[in-house]
Protein backbone atom coordinates (compact mmCIF):
# COMPACT_ATOMS: atom_id res chain seq x y z
CA UNK A 1 0.00 0.00 0.00
CA UNK A 2 1.56 3.32 -0.98
CA UNK A 3 1.39 6.49 1.08
CA UNK A 4 -1.41 8.02 -1.03
CA UNK A 5 -3.83 5.34 0.17
CA UNK A 6 -2.62 5.66 3.75
CA UNK A 7 -3.48 9.37 3.76
CA UNK A 8 -6.76 8.67 1.98
CA UNK A 9 -7.69 6.18 4.72
CA UNK A 10 -6.82 8.77 7.39
CA UNK A 11 -9.18 11.11 5.51
CA UNK A 12 -11.92 8.46 5.63
CA UNK A 13 -11.26 8.08 9.36
CA UNK A 14 -11.59 11.84 9.95
CA UNK A 15 -14.80 11.91 7.90
CA UNK A 16 -16.29 9.05 9.92
CA UNK A 17 -15.30 10.57 13.27
CA UNK A 18 -16.92 13.82 12.20
CA UNK A 19 -20.05 12.00 11.04
CA UNK A 20 -20.36 10.20 14.39
CA UNK A 21 -19.86 13.44 16.34
CA UNK A 22 -22.37 15.23 14.12
CA UNK A 23 -25.06 12.67 14.98
CA UNK A 24 -24.26 12.13 18.67
CA UNK A 25 -23.89 15.73 19.89
CA UNK A 26 -26.81 18.07 20.32
CA UNK A 27 -24.84 21.25 20.95
CA UNK A 28 -24.69 23.21 17.72
CA UNK A 29 -21.07 24.34 18.22
CA UNK A 30 -20.03 20.70 18.37
CA UNK A 31 -22.07 19.97 15.26
CA UNK A 32 -20.36 22.82 13.39
CA UNK A 33 -16.96 21.52 14.52
CA UNK A 34 -17.95 18.00 13.45
CA UNK A 35 -18.88 19.21 9.97
CA UNK A 36 -15.49 20.94 9.75
CA UNK A 37 -13.71 17.72 10.72
CA UNK A 38 -15.72 15.88 8.03
CA UNK A 39 -14.70 18.52 5.51
CA UNK A 40 -11.04 18.19 6.48
CA UNK A 41 -11.33 14.44 5.87
CA UNK A 42 -12.74 15.05 2.39
CA UNK A 43 -9.92 17.51 1.61
CA UNK A 44 -7.35 14.98 2.80
CA UNK A 45 -8.85 12.28 0.56
CA UNK A 46 -8.78 14.62 -2.46
CA UNK A 47 -5.17 15.67 -1.84
CA UNK A 48 -4.04 12.10 -1.17
CA UNK A 49 -5.68 10.63 -4.28
CA UNK A 50 -4.20 13.44 -6.42
CA UNK A 51 -0.76 11.97 -5.67
CA UNK A 52 -1.45 8.86 -7.76
CA UNK A 53 -0.16 10.36 -11.02
CA UNK A 54 2.92 8.16 -11.09
CA UNK A 55 4.94 11.35 -11.66
CA UNK A 56 6.83 13.65 -9.32
CA UNK A 57 4.10 16.33 -9.61
CA UNK A 58 0.62 15.54 -8.25
CA UNK A 59 -2.57 16.22 -10.19
CA UNK A 60 -3.17 20.00 -9.77
CA UNK A 61 -6.95 19.90 -10.35
CA UNK A 62 -7.91 18.38 -6.95
CA UNK A 63 -5.41 20.73 -5.30
CA UNK A 64 -7.18 23.73 -6.84
CA UNK A 65 -10.56 22.32 -5.73
CA UNK A 66 -9.30 21.92 -2.16
CA UNK A 67 -7.93 25.49 -2.02
CA UNK A 68 -11.33 26.76 -3.14
CA UNK A 69 -13.06 24.37 -0.75
CA UNK A 70 -11.09 25.48 2.31
CA UNK A 71 -12.02 29.13 1.83
CA UNK A 72 -15.67 28.25 1.23
CA UNK A 73 -15.67 26.00 4.33
CA UNK A 74 -14.24 28.81 6.47
CA UNK A 75 -16.87 31.30 5.29
CA UNK A 76 -19.71 28.77 5.68
CA UNK A 77 -18.50 28.03 9.22
CA UNK A 78 -18.53 31.75 10.04
CA UNK A 79 -22.11 32.02 8.79
CA UNK A 80 -23.11 28.92 10.79
CA UNK A 81 -21.53 30.34 13.95
CA UNK A 82 -23.42 33.61 13.59
CA UNK A 83 -26.66 31.65 13.00
CA UNK A 84 -25.93 29.68 16.18
CA UNK A 85 -25.30 32.87 18.19
CA UNK A 86 -28.56 34.31 16.88
CA UNK A 87 -30.37 31.15 17.97
CA UNK A 88 -28.79 31.40 21.43
CA UNK A 89 -29.82 35.04 21.65
CA UNK A 90 -33.39 34.17 20.62
CA UNK A 91 -34.01 30.99 22.62
CA UNK A 92 -31.25 30.76 25.24
CA UNK A 93 -30.30 27.29 24.00
CA UNK A 94 -27.48 26.27 21.69
CA UNK A 95 -29.44 23.19 20.67
CA UNK A 96 -32.22 22.62 18.19
CA UNK A 97 -35.39 21.54 19.91
CA UNK A 98 -37.17 18.31 18.92
CA UNK A 99 -40.40 19.63 20.38
CA UNK A 100 -42.20 22.16 18.22
CA UNK A 101 -44.22 23.61 21.12
CA UNK A 102 -41.13 24.19 23.23
CA UNK A 103 -39.74 26.83 20.93
CA UNK A 104 -42.87 28.97 21.13
Amino acid at each position, binding site marked *: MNSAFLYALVGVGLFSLGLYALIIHTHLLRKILAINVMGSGVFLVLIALAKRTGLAVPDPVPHAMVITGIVVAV*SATALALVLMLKL*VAATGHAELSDDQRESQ
Partner: protein
Amino acid sequence: MHDRVAIQTDHTRKQATPLLRILIALPVLAVAAGLAYIMLSFSPVAPGLSGQVTDQLAHSGVSNPVTAVLLNFRGYDTLLETVVLLLALLGVWALGGTELRDEVTPGPVLDSLSRLLLPMLILVAAYLLWVGAHAPGGAFQAGSVLAAAGVLLLLTGWRLHVNLAALPLRMILVAGPGAFVLMAVLTLLIEGHLLQYPAEHAGLLILILETAATFSIGFTLTGLFLGGIPRDRDIE
Protein backbone atom coordinates in the same frame (compact mmCIF):
# COMPACT_ATOMS: atom_id res chain seq x y z
CA MET B 1 -24.12 43.10 24.71
CA HIS B 2 -25.34 39.54 25.21
CA ASP B 3 -24.47 37.34 28.10
CA ARG B 4 -21.52 35.04 27.56
CA VAL B 5 -23.07 32.44 29.86
CA ALA B 6 -25.85 31.80 27.38
CA ILE B 7 -23.65 29.69 25.11
CA GLN B 8 -22.97 27.07 27.75
CA THR B 9 -24.44 23.64 27.31
CA ASP B 10 -27.80 23.03 28.87
CA HIS B 11 -27.12 19.89 30.91
CA THR B 12 -30.74 19.25 31.64
CA ARG B 13 -31.22 18.17 28.05
CA LYS B 14 -31.18 14.51 27.16
CA GLN B 15 -27.71 13.10 26.52
CA ALA B 16 -27.12 10.09 24.29
CA THR B 17 -27.14 6.84 26.29
CA PRO B 18 -24.35 4.24 25.81
CA LEU B 19 -26.73 1.94 23.95
CA LEU B 20 -27.70 4.74 21.56
CA ARG B 21 -24.03 5.59 21.02
CA ILE B 22 -23.31 2.00 19.99
CA LEU B 23 -26.38 1.90 17.76
CA ILE B 24 -25.12 5.04 16.00
CA ALA B 25 -21.48 3.96 15.95
CA LEU B 26 -22.26 0.71 14.12
CA PRO B 27 -23.70 2.26 10.94
CA VAL B 28 -21.00 4.96 11.00
CA LEU B 29 -18.37 2.20 11.17
CA ALA B 30 -20.12 0.47 8.27
CA VAL B 31 -19.93 3.71 6.27
CA ALA B 32 -16.24 4.06 7.16
CA ALA B 33 -15.52 0.46 6.13
CA GLY B 34 -17.39 0.94 2.86
CA LEU B 35 -15.51 4.16 2.08
CA ALA B 36 -12.17 2.52 2.96
CA TYR B 37 -13.00 -0.42 0.70
CA ILE B 38 -13.80 1.95 -2.18
CA MET B 39 -10.57 3.91 -1.57
CA LEU B 40 -8.46 0.77 -1.67
CA SER B 41 -10.16 -0.44 -4.86
CA PHE B 42 -8.93 2.63 -6.77
CA SER B 43 -6.09 2.15 -9.22
CA PRO B 44 -2.72 2.99 -7.63
CA VAL B 45 -1.79 5.00 -10.72
CA ALA B 46 -4.34 7.48 -12.06
CA PRO B 47 -2.94 10.54 -13.85
CA GLY B 48 -6.33 12.29 -13.81
CA LEU B 49 -6.20 15.59 -15.65
CA SER B 50 -2.54 16.28 -14.86
CA GLY B 51 -1.47 15.39 -18.43
CA GLN B 52 -3.88 17.91 -19.98
CA VAL B 53 -2.81 20.59 -17.50
CA THR B 54 0.89 19.98 -18.25
CA ASP B 55 0.23 20.12 -22.00
CA GLN B 56 -1.57 23.47 -21.79
CA LEU B 57 0.56 25.01 -19.02
CA ALA B 58 2.69 26.97 -21.49
CA HIS B 59 -0.43 28.84 -22.72
CA SER B 60 -1.77 29.65 -19.25
CA GLY B 61 0.51 32.63 -18.48
CA VAL B 62 1.77 31.07 -15.21
CA SER B 63 4.08 28.15 -14.50
CA ASN B 64 2.45 26.92 -11.28
CA PRO B 65 -0.09 24.27 -12.35
CA VAL B 66 -2.42 24.90 -9.37
CA THR B 67 -2.62 28.63 -10.14
CA ALA B 68 -3.12 27.81 -13.82
CA VAL B 69 -6.11 25.59 -12.93
CA LEU B 70 -7.55 28.09 -10.45
CA LEU B 71 -7.25 31.28 -12.46
CA ASN B 72 -7.19 30.08 -16.06
CA PHE B 73 -8.48 26.60 -16.90
CA ARG B 74 -11.22 26.62 -14.29
CA GLY B 75 -11.46 30.36 -13.73
CA TYR B 76 -15.25 30.25 -13.37
CA ASP B 77 -14.82 28.09 -10.24
CA THR B 78 -12.81 30.86 -8.64
CA LEU B 79 -15.25 33.48 -9.91
CA LEU B 80 -18.14 31.69 -8.21
CA GLU B 81 -16.04 31.02 -5.13
CA THR B 82 -15.41 34.74 -4.55
CA VAL B 83 -19.17 35.25 -4.92
CA VAL B 84 -19.80 32.54 -2.29
CA LEU B 85 -17.48 34.40 0.11
CA LEU B 86 -19.36 37.62 -0.51
CA LEU B 87 -22.70 35.85 0.01
CA ALA B 88 -21.50 34.42 3.34
CA LEU B 89 -20.56 37.90 4.51
CA LEU B 90 -23.88 39.31 3.28
CA GLY B 91 -25.61 36.52 5.19
CA VAL B 92 -23.75 37.45 8.39
CA TRP B 93 -24.60 41.12 7.87
CA ALA B 94 -28.23 40.30 7.07
CA LEU B 95 -28.49 38.48 10.40
CA GLY B 96 -27.50 41.73 12.08
CA GLY B 97 -24.18 40.39 13.32
CA THR B 98 -23.12 39.77 16.88
CA GLU B 99 -21.65 41.93 19.58
CA LEU B 100 -20.04 39.35 21.84
CA ARG B 101 -16.55 40.77 21.96
CA ASP B 102 -15.52 43.00 24.79
CA GLU B 103 -13.78 46.19 23.82
CA VAL B 104 -10.35 45.92 25.39
CA THR B 105 -7.40 48.25 25.38
CA PRO B 106 -4.25 46.26 24.57
CA GLY B 107 -1.24 46.43 26.83
CA PRO B 108 2.02 48.01 25.57
CA VAL B 109 3.55 44.62 24.61
CA LEU B 110 0.58 43.46 22.56
CA ASP B 111 0.22 46.89 21.04
CA SER B 112 3.83 47.20 19.87
CA LEU B 113 4.03 43.53 18.82
CA SER B 114 0.98 43.90 16.60
CA ARG B 115 2.50 47.04 15.11
CA LEU B 116 5.63 45.02 14.25
CA LEU B 117 3.77 41.98 12.98
CA LEU B 118 1.27 43.75 10.80
CA PRO B 119 3.69 45.11 8.14
CA MET B 120 5.34 41.67 8.12
CA LEU B 121 2.02 39.93 7.47
CA ILE B 122 1.19 42.37 4.67
CA LEU B 123 4.63 41.75 3.16
CA VAL B 124 4.14 37.96 3.37
CA ALA B 125 0.72 38.32 1.74
CA ALA B 126 2.22 40.35 -1.11
CA TYR B 127 5.00 37.77 -1.53
CA LEU B 128 2.53 34.87 -1.61
CA LEU B 129 0.45 36.71 -4.20
CA TRP B 130 3.48 37.30 -6.42
CA VAL B 131 5.05 33.86 -6.00
CA GLY B 132 1.76 32.13 -6.92
CA ALA B 133 2.65 32.46 -10.59
CA HIS B 134 5.45 29.90 -10.41
CA ALA B 135 5.37 28.22 -6.97
CA PRO B 136 2.78 27.32 -4.30
CA GLY B 137 0.96 30.49 -3.33
CA GLY B 138 -1.66 32.71 -4.86
CA ALA B 139 -4.75 34.74 -4.09
CA PHE B 140 -6.25 32.41 -1.48
CA GLN B 141 -3.09 32.01 0.55
CA ALA B 142 -2.31 35.72 0.34
CA GLY B 143 -5.90 36.61 1.22
CA SER B 144 -5.81 34.30 4.24
CA VAL B 145 -2.59 35.90 5.52
CA LEU B 146 -4.15 39.32 4.98
CA ALA B 147 -7.18 38.13 6.95
CA ALA B 148 -4.86 36.95 9.74
CA ALA B 149 -3.46 40.49 9.87
CA GLY B 150 -7.02 41.82 10.05
CA VAL B 151 -7.96 39.41 12.85
CA LEU B 152 -4.83 40.45 14.76
CA LEU B 153 -5.87 44.09 14.41
CA LEU B 154 -9.40 43.34 15.61
CA LEU B 155 -8.11 41.36 18.59
CA THR B 156 -5.85 44.21 19.65
CA GLY B 157 -8.78 46.58 19.76
CA TRP B 158 -8.32 48.32 16.42
CA ARG B 159 -11.49 49.30 14.57
CA LEU B 160 -12.08 50.53 11.06
CA HIS B 161 -12.43 54.29 10.83
CA VAL B 162 -16.06 55.33 10.44
CA ASN B 163 -15.34 57.15 7.19
CA LEU B 164 -13.91 53.98 5.67
CA ALA B 165 -16.62 51.61 6.88
CA ALA B 166 -19.27 52.49 4.31
CA LEU B 167 -18.29 52.85 0.66
CA PRO B 168 -14.50 52.15 0.66
CA LEU B 169 -14.91 48.85 2.55
CA ARG B 170 -17.70 47.72 0.25
CA MET B 171 -15.64 48.62 -2.81
CA ILE B 172 -12.82 46.38 -1.58
CA LEU B 173 -15.25 43.57 -0.74
CA VAL B 174 -16.68 43.51 -4.27
CA ALA B 175 -13.32 44.18 -5.99
CA GLY B 176 -12.56 40.46 -6.42
CA PRO B 177 -15.94 39.28 -7.74
CA GLY B 178 -16.30 42.54 -9.68
CA ALA B 179 -12.93 42.16 -11.40
CA PHE B 180 -13.75 38.54 -12.22
CA VAL B 181 -17.15 39.37 -13.70
CA LEU B 182 -15.69 42.25 -15.69
CA MET B 183 -12.92 40.00 -16.97
CA ALA B 184 -15.43 37.27 -17.83
CA VAL B 185 -17.58 39.69 -19.83
CA LEU B 186 -14.58 41.23 -21.62
CA THR B 187 -13.07 37.88 -22.57
CA LEU B 188 -16.49 36.65 -23.67
CA LEU B 189 -16.84 39.66 -25.99
CA ILE B 190 -13.26 39.75 -27.28
CA GLU B 191 -12.09 36.13 -27.24
CA GLY B 192 -15.49 34.50 -27.58
CA HIS B 193 -15.18 32.31 -24.48
CA LEU B 194 -15.75 32.98 -20.79
CA LEU B 195 -12.45 33.76 -19.01
CA GLN B 196 -10.33 32.70 -21.97
CA TYR B 197 -7.40 35.11 -21.80
CA PRO B 198 -5.33 36.08 -24.84
CA ALA B 199 -2.22 33.91 -24.35
CA GLU B 200 0.30 36.78 -24.57
CA HIS B 201 -1.41 38.81 -21.79
CA ALA B 202 -2.58 35.90 -19.63
CA GLY B 203 0.09 36.32 -16.94
CA LEU B 204 -0.68 40.00 -16.37
CA LEU B 205 -4.46 39.47 -16.42
CA ILE B 206 -4.15 36.66 -13.88
CA LEU B 207 -2.03 38.86 -11.61
CA ILE B 208 -4.62 41.66 -11.78
CA LEU B 209 -7.44 39.23 -10.95
CA GLU B 210 -5.44 37.67 -8.13
CA THR B 211 -4.63 41.06 -6.62
CA ALA B 212 -8.28 42.08 -6.58
CA ALA B 213 -9.28 38.65 -5.22
CA THR B 214 -6.61 38.83 -2.48
CA PHE B 215 -7.97 42.11 -1.13
CA SER B 216 -11.55 40.85 -1.28
CA ILE B 217 -10.75 37.51 0.38
CA GLY B 218 -8.69 39.16 3.11
CA PHE B 219 -11.30 41.77 3.97
CA THR B 220 -14.22 39.32 3.65
CA LEU B 221 -12.62 36.80 6.02
CA THR B 222 -11.81 39.60 8.48
CA GLY B 223 -15.39 40.80 8.20
CA LEU B 224 -16.63 37.27 8.89
CA PHE B 225 -14.45 37.15 12.00
CA LEU B 226 -15.85 40.49 13.17
CA GLY B 227 -19.28 38.93 12.77
CA GLY B 228 -21.14 42.19 12.30
CA ILE B 229 -21.41 45.26 10.18
CA PRO B 230 -18.57 47.69 10.93
CA ARG B 231 -19.86 50.66 12.90
CA ASP B 232 -21.23 53.27 10.63
CA ARG B 233 -23.78 55.79 11.78
CA ASP B 234 -24.79 56.64 8.23
CA ILE B 235 -26.08 53.12 7.72
CA GLU B 236 -27.73 52.45 11.03
